[in-house]
């Protein structure tokens, strides 16, 4: 027997390992083991009393390069070993400064939770939904293929993570090499049990070069084995988000784990230790009207006059921006990609049979919702990208959207792609809008919505699909406000309200006015002018005014009437209106009197608009002084079948439904309606101009004025906007033939890019420059 002493010295340094096991084995002899806890640069030893012979000495421990050698024991001896530490760590930009951070704690997930605010933690991963390099299949964005798409993509759309090797050399002699049996494994897991597999949401590439390919993600797997040789001293990997938070991904988060496998410690394929990082997809932010317009879009749809009229104020906007003509009529059918399991397939909206046929679908607003997405970048500054949300609508304009609009500068994301959600008119950009920054004070406690709040109509008839609503909710940035647009035949919020800038209030959360359509205001103007201008016509192009070359009033068609012209006296009288609504039950046109129309507008439509204002008042601090009422008269378009109750009646004293006119619009037996006069609130809010649909309200002839007269409805809104000091300029555009008669207006026919809001300036604190520091959750 001999006293065989094994003396171990751990290297000098700071590393998270301190334990090794010494094992001595010899044929015919019992195995000898000893666990030693080491202190850097301090020798520790253990004496084994073992038989003489040839023994196998093994020293192993997490992070330590193992020793495995034969020793011949003849008599007492001391075997001195200086150990090498080699370990691997995982790095992300946890603190969101654009630079990869030090590793977190071993065998823990860092941070413990994803947080936001000034000390927020958790790397933000860009949703790479633009199209760099053009090497993806047409219609697909960069995150819908397996590759990194060019050098620009590397900068703007792909974040980094890095595996780093640390070697701590022994106290004497050269460092040992990395053992050949050591292995690494990257694993992507979900952060919340209710989320679908994280690899459906994030993609990790095999490097950070142009054309690096997916190793973890939708089309590969949720883990990848990585050799130590490929890592060397350090290796960076690109990572992008495939989707924004939403359905099956409510958390928006994932967990990346690096498992280090030392077979001599934990056996083959079993992790020995790990480093893990929480990541979170960048958020989508819907744009509001306090953000500066940087581009306007309109569809080329046999609407040359409208394009020309719109081009004039656009050309004079301050700050200026360009106008882009969309050409769906010349855009071939384009596939809409969606991820089905782990395969990208072509989506056909549930309940539709094919891709929409090519046409000049002019409704630019309704196909997409203007927004943007921002993330911290890779050290070259914060990266911001315009990103439209594709609404769950199925019209030919989407061919142009997928073929042309998606580009290096413009991204697109379709929350409902692949869903079983049905199409509804409510799933339209005209029904999805964002308030400017607002606040809500309750019992002295104030909640600030620095990015505004999304609002949309979602009731019984007009609804927004579940996927899109889950998408809005999951962004957790602009909590939605639900309004009732059932009373409108189209059912979009832009038909009844909009926000315009007002720079004057000191309160950063009140720098706007809310414009709402108001039949009561319209009829009030008529009443106030009945005596002086009773014969002034509505719904007619005035003589020799733009769009009318004749010396006479040219009647306008609406509500099944070829010429719906009527005077102020007519509109305030009891006679038969020339307009009608179609009873689908019989196919017949149903006439009505001006009195029926008037009472229904003032007591029915106005009530429902006021009801929506009350909903807004409950959602944020809104007073009547913040509201500008805009004269608009509505007409019934068609009727909803069903049974009405007392609560649906406009007047209890009127017998029955009065053929629909005594029922609140949007209820059973009531009408769904549309604007009769130009719906001025359905305007395009530019930088210093409001591009407003001409109302064709009562026209007062005055040959001393340009166009030989003026429109009382135009006068009304112009005066109210003029009361906003340094407010925007009103520009009235005739969109009647191209949009109004098809139940839309200028806002419906346009869309835009807007620069991100300068929160730092607006709210006076650098914290509000970026969303991840601005928000608390």
């Amino acid at each position, binding site marked *: 027997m001999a006293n065989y002493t094994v003396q171990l010295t751990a290297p000098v340094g700071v590393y998270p390992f301190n334990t090794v096991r010494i094992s001595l084995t010899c044929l015919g002899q019992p195995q000898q083991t000893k666990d030693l806890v080491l202190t850097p640069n301090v020798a520790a030893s253990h004496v084994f009393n073992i038989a003489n012979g040839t023994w196998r000495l093994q020293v192993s421990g997490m992070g330590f390069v193992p020793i495995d050698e034969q020793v011949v024991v003849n008599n007492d001896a001391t075997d001195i070993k200086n150990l090498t530490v080699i370990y691997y760590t995982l790095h992300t930009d946890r603190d969101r400064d654009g630079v990869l951070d030090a590793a977190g704690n071993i065998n823990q997930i860092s941070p413990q939770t994803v947080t936001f605010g000034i000390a927020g933690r958790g790397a933000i991963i860009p949703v790479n939904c633009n199209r760099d390099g053009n090497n993806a299949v047409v219609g697909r964005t960069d995150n819908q293929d397996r590759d990194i798409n060019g050098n620009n993509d590397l900068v703007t759309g792909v974040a980094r993570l890095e595996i780093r090797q640390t070697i701590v050399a022994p106290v004497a002699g050269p460092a040992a090499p990395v053992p050949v049996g050591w292995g690494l494994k990257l694993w992507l897991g979900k952060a919340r049990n209710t989320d679908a597999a994280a690899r459906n949401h994030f993609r990790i590439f095999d490097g950070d070069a142009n054309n690096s390919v997916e190793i973890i993600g939708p089309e590969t797997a949720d883990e990848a084995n990585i050799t130590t040789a490929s890592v060397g001293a350090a290796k960076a990997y690109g990572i992008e988000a495939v989707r924004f938070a939403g359905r099956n991904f409510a958390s928006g988060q994932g967990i990346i784990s690096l498992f280090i496998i030392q077979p001599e410690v934990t056996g083959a394929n079993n992790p020995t230790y790990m480093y893990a990082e929480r990541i979170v997809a960048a958020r989508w932010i819907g744009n509001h009207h306090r953000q500066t317009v940087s581009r306007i879009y309109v569809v080329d749809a046999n609407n040359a006059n409208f394009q020309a009229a719109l081009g004039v104020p656009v050309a004079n906007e301050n700050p200026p921006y360009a106008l882009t003509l969309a050409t769906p009529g010349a855009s071939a059918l384009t596939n809409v990609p969606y991820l089905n399991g782990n395969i990208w397939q072509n989506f056909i909206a*549930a*309940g*539709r*049979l094919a891709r929409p046929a090519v*046409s000049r679908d*002019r*409704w630019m607003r*309704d196909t997409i919702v203007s927004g943007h997405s921002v993330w911290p970048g890779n050290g070259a500054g914060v990266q911001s990208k315009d990103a439209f949300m594709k609404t769950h609508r199925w*019209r030919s304009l989407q061919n142009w959207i997928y073929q042309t609009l998606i580009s290096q500068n413009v991204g697109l994301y379709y929350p409902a792609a692949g869903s*079983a*959600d*049905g*199409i509804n*008119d409510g799933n*339209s950009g*005209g029904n999805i809008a964002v308030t400017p920054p607002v606040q809500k004070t309750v019992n002295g406690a104030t909640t600030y919505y620095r990015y505004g709040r999304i609002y949309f109509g979602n009731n019984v*008839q007009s609804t927004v699909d*579940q996927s899109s609503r889950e998408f809005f909710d999951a962004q957790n940035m602009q909590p939605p406000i639900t309004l009732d647009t059932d009373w409108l*035949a*189209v*059912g*979009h919020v832009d038909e009844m309200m909009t926000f315009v800038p007002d720079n004057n209030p000191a309160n950063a959360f009140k720098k706007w006015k809310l414009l709402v359509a108001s039949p009561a205001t319209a009829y009030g103007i008529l009443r106030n002018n009945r005596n002086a201008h009773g014969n002034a016509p509505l719904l007619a192009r005035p003589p020799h005014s733009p769009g009318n070359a004749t010396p006479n009033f040219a009647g306008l068609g609406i509500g099944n009437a070829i010429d719906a012209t009527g005077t102020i006296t007519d509109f305030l009288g009891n006679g038969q209106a020339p307009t009608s609504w179609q009873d*689908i*039950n*019989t*196919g017949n046109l149903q006439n009505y009197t001006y009195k029926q129309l008037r009472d229904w507008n003032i007591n029915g439509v106005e009530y429902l608009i006021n009801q929506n204002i009350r909903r807004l008042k409950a959602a944020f601090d809104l007073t009547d002084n913040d509201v500008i009422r805009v004269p608009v008269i509505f007409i019934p378009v*068609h009727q*909803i*079948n069903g*049974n*009405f*109750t*007392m609560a649906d009646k406009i007047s209890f004293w009127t*017998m*029955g*439904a*009065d*053929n*629909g006119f005594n029922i609140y619009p949007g209820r059973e*037996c009531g009408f769904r309606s549309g604007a009769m006069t130009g719906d001025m609130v359905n305007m395009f809010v530019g930088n210093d101009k409001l591009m407003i649909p001409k109302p064709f309200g009562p026209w007062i002839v005055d040959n001393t004025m340009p166009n030989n007269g003026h429109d009382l409805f135009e006068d009304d809104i112009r005066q109210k906007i003029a009361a906003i000091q340094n407010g925007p300029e009103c520009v009235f555009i005739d969109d009647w033939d191209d949009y109004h008669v*098809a*139940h*839309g207006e200028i806002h*419906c026919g346009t869309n835009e890019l807007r620069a991100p809001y300068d929160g730092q300036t607006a709210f006076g604190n650098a914290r509000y420059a970026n969303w991840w520091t601005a928000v608390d959750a």
Partner: protein
Amino acid sequence: MSAQSDYQQALKDIASLASSMEDRISNRPAPYTVDQIFRRYSGTIATPMIDDLKAGVWKKWESWQLGGAISYLGSYGTSAAVAPLREIEQNYPVTDIQIQAKELADLLATLDVAVSEARQIPQVQDAIKSGDADQMARSMLLGLAQIDPDWPVRASEIQTKLFDLSADSFPAINEMAGGKLSQDDVTKALVEILFQQFLGTPTDSQREH
């Protein structure tokens, strides 16, 4: 016009309506407008529609059209519609349509038994023989009340609430009327107000309940 030709005409009307909306901001009719077109033909087209659904036409229909058809069958559907509705429930790709089809199929599946049982009731048989609409409606409702234990419960709930509203209103009315009205007068007036569409001059086709 045969039921089949009526049905085909309804489909043409629907296609025509959809076509007329092509350029509008809403380019498809709402399901309830499709339902309204089908209802122009009352219940006559239910049979050819159900046959069409059995033949799988629903696979070629967009959701707005199928939704309207199912709404129509909510009034005029028979137990024959259960099988195609179950197919729609299981195979049509739109969640809302699946739910709509399931609810209607569940309801219609109970019809066979209820109808055959109610038809055995002598009062119902007499009413059918009479051909009198009022008598038929009353007898058939009471027949359903007899065979469906939930029916009297639901009817009682309505009655109780109506009596409660009358009783709660009576003290004020009594004071205003100086004791000239009884509570029965108030209850009668309440019924007339709430159901005036059915009790008054039938100038208005809409129902109030």
